[in-house]
């Protein structure tokens, strides 16, 4: 049976939301097209109880089997020099049809070198769709299509996984994932970590990346530049997986690198939104929030959205 590998990214020891989405997407494709979902977890030295907890979460997200590799070299950020040999070993062993990375940057670091080693196609910030191809009188065939924007955003590139005759390595958007539905006790197989080819390459320090949340967010609220107080107050009331971004140059790179499921463009940011140039990922829904046309008062936008969230929450509680 064909296999799909979903790479799991941890931040501060916890599985990221995009990683859960990747496992859920792999499950969806596997159920439609018939495949086994392998989740690949790479960790530093970890107590068994912690590993069991992570494995249980991954399993419940939809993985059939969990491959876990634990080594000192895997303790840091996912870089090709530390993680690449392990991924290549797993790919060589399983020969997966799809090797999926979650939104968050691990795909950009690990995806292209893995694709080169596998002789695979590579798509970053991709969406996946499954459709049934009518082959009457034969049973319908399930087609798996990956798509992404071209760099110029003037069209899409699409790959039909069944037609390509090569595996595909892809990083996905940060989408919604269903409630845990899988077996929380999937089989866990420990995988030895091969020696790195570049032992002299090492992480010697790190600092906080203020844009790290944007990489992972499932929903992005795009506003003009607001005051710090208004921004802090607004963000304190946001649900998990939602982030506030400022549509100015300071956040531009992080915004371009993000892959949210939906984006809410507040009135104060709408002058920056180029309606003719697609943003983000083909699956991203972009919602223009109606307000005073031409308004640049970002603080007022955030206050209005906070009030609307309060109303929506109270209506939800009432119902």
């Amino acid at each position, binding site marked *: 049976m064909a296999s799909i590998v979903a790479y799991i990214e941890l931040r501060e020891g916890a599985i990221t939301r995009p990683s859960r989405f990747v496992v859920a997407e792999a499950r969806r494709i596997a159920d439609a097209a018939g495949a086994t979902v392998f989740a690949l977890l790479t960790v530093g030295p970890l107590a068994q109880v912690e590993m069991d907890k992570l494995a249980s979460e991954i399993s419940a997200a939809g993985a059939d089997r969990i491959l876990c590799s634990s080594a000192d070299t895997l303790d840091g950020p996912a870089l090709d020099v530390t993680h690449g040999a392990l991924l290549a070993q797993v790919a060589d062993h399983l020969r997966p049809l799809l090797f999926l990375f979650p939104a968050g940057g691990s795909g950009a*670091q690990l995806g*292209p070198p893995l694709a080169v080693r596998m002789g695979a196609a590579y798509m970053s910030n991709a969406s996946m769709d499954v459709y049934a191809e009518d082959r009457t009188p034969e049973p319908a065939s399930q087609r798996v299509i*990956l798509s992404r924007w071209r760099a110029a955003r003037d*069209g899409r590139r699409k790959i039909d996984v069944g037609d*390509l005759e090569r595996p595909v390595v892809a990083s996905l958007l940060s989408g919604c994932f269903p409630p845990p539905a899988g077996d929380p006790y999937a089989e866990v197989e420990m995988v030895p970590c091969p020696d790195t080819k570049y032992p002299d390459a090492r992480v010697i320090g790190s600092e906080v990346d203020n844009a790290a949340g944007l990489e992972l967010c499932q929903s992005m609220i795009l506003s003009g530049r607001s005051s710090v107080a208004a921004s802090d107050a607004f963000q304190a009331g946001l649900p998990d997986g939602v982030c506030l971004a400022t549509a100015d140059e300071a956040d531009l790179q992080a915004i371009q690198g993000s892959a949210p499921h939906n984006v809410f463009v507040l009135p104060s940011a709408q002058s920056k939104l180029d309606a003719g140039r697609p943003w983000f990922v*083909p699956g991203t829904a972009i919602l*223009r929030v*109606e307000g005073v046309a031409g308004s640049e008062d970002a603080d007022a936008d955030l206050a209005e959205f906070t009030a609307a969230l309060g109303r*929506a929450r109270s209506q939800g509680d009432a119902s």
Partner: protein
Amino acid sequence: MIVLLCLESPSPSPASRAALCLASTLGDKAEVVVLSAGGATGSASFELARQSAAVRRIVHLQDTGLREPDFFTLGMVLAEAARHLEARVVVAGQHTDIEGQGLVPAALAHHLRAPLFARVQSATLPPSGQGVLKITVRAGGKLCTVASPLPVVLSTSEGELGSMPPREAGQSAPTVETLSLAQLGMAASLLVPRPGLLGILAPAQGHGIESKSFDESARILLRGR
């Protein structure tokens, strides 16, 4: 120390412009050599390279076999050129369609047998020209400082870096040197294109922007649609 900047032709992508900016920050010890492959020599890419004060040489790989190479092949050719030019640091843009979103730097690193770092924010050359390169990369939710042996391949994304110092008045721009596959000891028959890895091109239809009120937007956000 030779720092090789791979610049696609005919026009540089924003990611390649960022790569040029990175190469320009490496200081006087860096002898920045711009390398392009295929196409004509009078393109916007060469003009950009001539404008940069940091660029000492411009080398163009010219061969009929380089008209439409795939990523893997192009990476192999660039790796041979990097060896030929004795490059210790190779910098390339990551995210254009032509480059396959980072496959060219990855294939280059693979064939050069050098470590690869993506999403590079800054780099500092070793003081003596030997030793390790210090690189800041965006990875794992952090800005990580990494020490890497040489040679090394660095790739940059669109909009990651600052401005490029322009060439001053009176400072002569380098002329374009040409290099052939034969000079690299490569046969054009090796360059077998592998079409299809980019996928088929489809129109950008269906990316409509919906308008919603604040209340509708808040409900959608809480529903997690």
